[in-house]
């Protein structure tokens, strides 16, 4: 293909870097307020890890909204289902989970995560076909259908697993912290950051380096024109919905291990948080979702440390502040 080299003298669009710098600015601004350097590092690492896990859960939702214009209030169901499916692998294999070997631990964690993603993705297929398909383009009905779906999923989990909270201990080699000087960095948080970054880079790679990614980006902007170019966007919708559901399942596993427990309402509890992240980020923007997740986690952690009473409303306050500054979110993508 002709790769006609350089761009001409077209004025380059301004790179909007301020949102990217926000997490760093916030972290640095908190340093003098927190006082202790070690506490600041611990809180910052905790924020990054929590932010990455929220990002994994929210990334699918932002793509689903951006591309499909679907308000999926049932997204939390995939989070819960993912966590419960992980227990099917991790609880019977307690010996491997408790083994003092990182490789053995990862050998059970990886299939648990893959199975959770596969089941959540398959559930996504069913939900899209049964609940979403009849109500494309009808937001109110989407909210009713998906909220109903979330309630049904939650009750189904209660019926299958019972009402009790299921403990899900962290694998032995992921317990504890690395001690660097007087700073303690939890091992699991590092793993969460690694997984979150991998998911982020993977999504960016697909969106920016593949034709499917081009189609998704184009579809977020103008679905009708993508169809007029001859692409069956419904199939793309379905694929994105399944991947988004699968990622929510992965996020559910990560979150359950982070909390070391699984319960049926965890998805419901996280739904508001995930929606706040998607709204802050700019509906449909993966980059915005990533930054939004980090900001939400930072405000929760720093706020909880400095003004514990503020922790309950910190996310809402953050959302209000961001939307007053940028009413369409940090990086608005869709024209909606």
């Amino acid at each position: 293909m002709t790769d006609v080299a350089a761009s001409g003298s077209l004025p380059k669009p301004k790179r909007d870097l301020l949102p990217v710098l926000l997490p760093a600015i916030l972290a640095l601004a908190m340093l003098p307020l927190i006082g202790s350097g070690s506490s600041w590092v611990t809180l910052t690492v905790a924020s990054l890890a929590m932010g990455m896990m929220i990002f994994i859960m929210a990334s699918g939702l932002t793509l689903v909204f951006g591309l499909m214009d679907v308000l999926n209030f049932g997204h939390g169901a995939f989070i819960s289902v993912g966590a419960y499916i992980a227990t099917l692998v991790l609880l019977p294999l307690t010996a491997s989970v408790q083994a003092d070997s990182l490789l053995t631990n990862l050998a059970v964690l990886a299939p648990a995560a893959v199975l959770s993603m596969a089941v959540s993705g398959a559930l996504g297929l069913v939900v899209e076909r049964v609940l979403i398909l009849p109500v494309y383009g009808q937001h109110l009905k989407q909210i009713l259908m998906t909220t109903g779906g979330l309630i049904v999923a939650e009750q189904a989990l209660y019926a299958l697993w019972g009402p009790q909270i299921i403990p899900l201990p962290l694998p032995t080699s992921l317990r504890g912290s690395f001690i660097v000087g007087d700073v303690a960095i939890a091992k699991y948080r590092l793993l969460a950051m690694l997984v979150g970054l991998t998911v982020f880079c993977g999504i960016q790679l697909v969106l920016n380096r593949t034709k499917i990614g081009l189609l998704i980006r184009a579809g977020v902007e103008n679905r009708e024109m993508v169809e007029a170019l001859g692409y069956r966007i419904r199939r793309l919708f379905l694929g994105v919905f399944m991947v988004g559901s699968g990622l929510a399942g992965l996020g559910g596993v990560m979150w359950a291990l982070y909390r070391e427990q699984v319960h049926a309402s965890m998805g419901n509890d996280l739904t508001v948080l995930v929606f706040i992240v998607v709204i802050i980020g700019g509906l449909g923007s993966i980059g915005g979702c990533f930054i939004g997740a980090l900001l939400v986690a930072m405000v929760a952690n720093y706020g909880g440390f400095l003004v514990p009473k503020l922790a309950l409303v910190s996310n809402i306050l953050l959302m209000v502040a961001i939307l007053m500054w940028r009413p369409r979110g940090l990086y608005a993508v869709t024209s909606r």
Partner: protein
Amino acid sequence: MSELLELAGVHTHVGRYHILQGIDFGVAAGQTTMLLGRNGAGKTSTLRTIMGLWQASAGRISLDGKRIENSATPDIARLGVGYVPETMAVFSDLTVKENLVLAARDGPLDDARLEWIFGFFPALRRFWLSRAGALSGGQKQMLSIARAIVEERRLLLIDEPTKGLAPAIVVALIECLAEIKRRGATILMVEQNFHAARELGDKVLVMDNGKIVHRGEMAALAADGGLQERLLGLSLETHQ
């Protein structure tokens, strides 16, 4: 000459509005048919209905003998119909290159064809790696047309390509469309600019209130000021 596209008794409803009210016409292969009429006459709706973006509520639409009135938009596009919407609808977050890569549905971009397109639209070569959203209105229109012709298409549906463009760009665009026409393309084009319509059209259809109210040779309409004034409210002197 055989008709590539045929519409018979086509009605379109959008919500409770009855937009197209039984239109019949054909577009002959290799010819350029201009669709003229006042704002709100149903021209854009006609193109959208052919493209499957709005579903015809009655009537028959055939492309080369194959019925398409119930086909989905992607299937109609895959039959070889290129569409340039009134809004241009370039993907502003994608580069010029990425817009064309997406439009080249059947494989990688063809170098020779790309050079042919760059011959009309040198700006697209210059801004190849720039975001389409940063292009000027005229350049976006060029990209929108380039997207429709980046692969061979049997029929081009073009909606008001000169709308809102500077006169110099309109001249360049007319030259480009004339060249596309010389290469044997079949075009159905909505146009408000009568000068452009006269330059490019072989046949003309005039719409009013969702109906075809006139059909004939473009040259005949261009030569008849009275007819223009009656059909389009045009004064010939202002469009010389």
